[in-house]
């Protein structure tokens, strides 16, 4: 179980100070654009390490007329009891820090072990039209929610790739140093690819088992490392990668970049019923495919880790027809995930009224909508964030 008991924002984006205690497992935030709906989703997405659902730079996060420092703190109910995760920048510093129950965590994986979050944003409507880096980020977030160590694996891989690029670009052909870095690239790339492959296999099975109103998608990896892992033991793939990287030094040096590695992976998504790749499907069909993936993922994480990830759905109803909207609400009601959904009007979400709270955004605050669920909330004063 993972429940958000309280969220506190301090000088974050459009919010000077906000304390929100969700009154239901599903919360709908509605209002015109620019009233702070997505800012609140973004705050929640930053509770897990990473740059959040807007891939924002630190400099963009503090409130414009604020002191420059900012904080987001979330109190969760987990299997192990209550825990508070905070993130932000302290005054006079532009380095984002984390707090876990008031202390600095040893590393970000400590936080990833407690919470996971998955999101869907309108920008992802173009996920299959744009460059592969967006798809890889999407894929890696899905993997990370299942495998908290995946982010460190990828970070180490990318550091090794960057270091090798640097040596090659400086013309520093130190054979032993390069092969040391290639050894790191090989080990981390194989570990990361194996984690991706495992996620994809399990997720495809989950999608196939739960096919409903959403078109069943099938995820594929365009990645020579993952392809080899399906037919060869991991140690052999590592050896192959080490040798290939060593042989590719002149080629990579000329290209100015490393042309083989876990950073080159692409993700494909295909509609199983029609065989249409997502890249060729209509916007509405693509959205439905992606929602199907995200809902199946939430169910997979819930069964694999004992808690469902936070589901952050920014404008999910756009591009969906009435039947699919109803199906989406049904799945959200059935899933055990803490869910926050945004939209421009409350009416779209009225079918959720008995299961969700709805809050109008605006004026730097949240305003409960009486047509939706209202539970008792406590009114004890809240200490400052972080």
């Amino acid at each position, binding site marked *: 179980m993972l429940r958000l008991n309280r969220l506190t924002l301090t000088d974050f984006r459009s919010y000077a100070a906000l304390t929100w205690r969700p009154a239901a497992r599903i919360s709908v935030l509605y209002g015109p654009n620019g009233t702070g709906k997505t800012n609140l989703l973004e705050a929640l997405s930053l509770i897990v390490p990473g740059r959040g659902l807007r891939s924002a730079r630190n400099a963009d996060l503090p409130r414009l007329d604020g002191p420059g420092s900012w904080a987001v703190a979330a109190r969760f109910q987990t299997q192990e009891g209550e825990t508070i995760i905070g993130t932000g920048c302290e005054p006079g510093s532009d380095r984002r820090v984390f707090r876990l129950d008031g202390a600095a965590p040893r*590393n970000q994986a400590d936080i990833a072990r407690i919470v996971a979050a998955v999101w869907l944003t309108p920008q992802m409507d173009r996920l299959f039209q744009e460059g592969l880096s967006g798809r890889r980020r999407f894929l890696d977030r899905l993997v990370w929610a299942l495998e908290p*160590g995946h982010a*460190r*694996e990828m*970070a*180490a891989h990318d*550091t*090794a790739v*960057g*270091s*090798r690029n*640097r*040596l090659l670009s*400086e013309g*520093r052909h*130190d*054979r*032993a*140093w390069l*092969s*040391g*870095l290639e*050894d*790191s690239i090989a080990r981390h790339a194989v570990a990361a690819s194996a984690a991706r492959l495992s996620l994809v296999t399990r997720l495809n099975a989950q999608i196939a088992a739960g096919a409903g109103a959403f078109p069943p998608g099938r995820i594929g990896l365009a990645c020579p490392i993952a392809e080899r892992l399906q037919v060869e033991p991991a140690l052999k793939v590592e050896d192959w990668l080490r040798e290939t990287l060593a042989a590719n030094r002149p080629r990579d040096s000329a290209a100015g970049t490393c042309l083989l590695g876990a950073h080159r992976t692409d993700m494909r998504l295909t509609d199983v019923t029609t065989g249409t790749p997502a890249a060729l499907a209509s916007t509405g069909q693509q959205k439905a495919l992606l929602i199907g993936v995200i809902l199946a993922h939430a169910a997979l994480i819930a069964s694999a880790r004992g808690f469902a990830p936070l589901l952050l759905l920014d404008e999910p109803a756009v591009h969906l027809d009435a039947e699919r909207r109803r199906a989406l609400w049904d799945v959200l009601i059935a899933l055990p995930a803490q869910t926050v959904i945004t939209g421009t009007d409350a009416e779209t979400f009225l079918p959720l009224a008995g299961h969700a709270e709805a809050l109008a955004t605006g004026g730097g605050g949240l305003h409960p909508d009486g047509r939706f669920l209202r539970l008792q909330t406590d009114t004890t004063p809240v200490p400052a964030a972080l």
Partner: protein
Amino acid sequence: MGGPEVEHLIGLLSKLPGMGPRSARRAALKMLQQPESRMLPLAAALREAAEAVKPCADCGNLDSQDPCTICADEHRDRSIICVVEGVGDLWALERARVHTGLYHVLGGTLSALSGIGPEDLNIPLLLSRIAEGEVAEVILALGATVDGAATAHWLTDQIRPTGVAITRVGQGVPMGGALDVLDDGTLAAALRTRRGA
């Protein structure tokens, strides 16, 4: 507040590891309130240490004698050299009492992104210590970072032709982990489970 002397003191203190402006201010205030019992003894200790402590010409450890206490200790096993990144790692291993041989402090790791190459590290001295012939095993106790691993790989490549055994500390050191922040038990386990490189 307190005049330029106090600001200067706080400025110097705040640059120490683990200190920020706030803790530096607290430390300065604490000392200033008891100059005779806290501040002057500290000033004397700082001067003494600064004048007496030097890097050991053999291993790179910091000590008031040269060769350092460890290199001069006749009871230590001179056939094993444990290579560490910094003096902090050496001290951590000594605290954990897990290594009875000698040490060698590299003074960093290879880092392409920070522009630190083999020529910036204390490597020639290590190779000449090995060439003297007394050494049978070199333990590479470098952090489990990409740069630590690359450095271990590089050193293995250099040392292998000499024929001495090379082992690497690996098990139990978390990925991305530095040695000097590990607890003694983890360090001991890491050294016990070293494997051939």
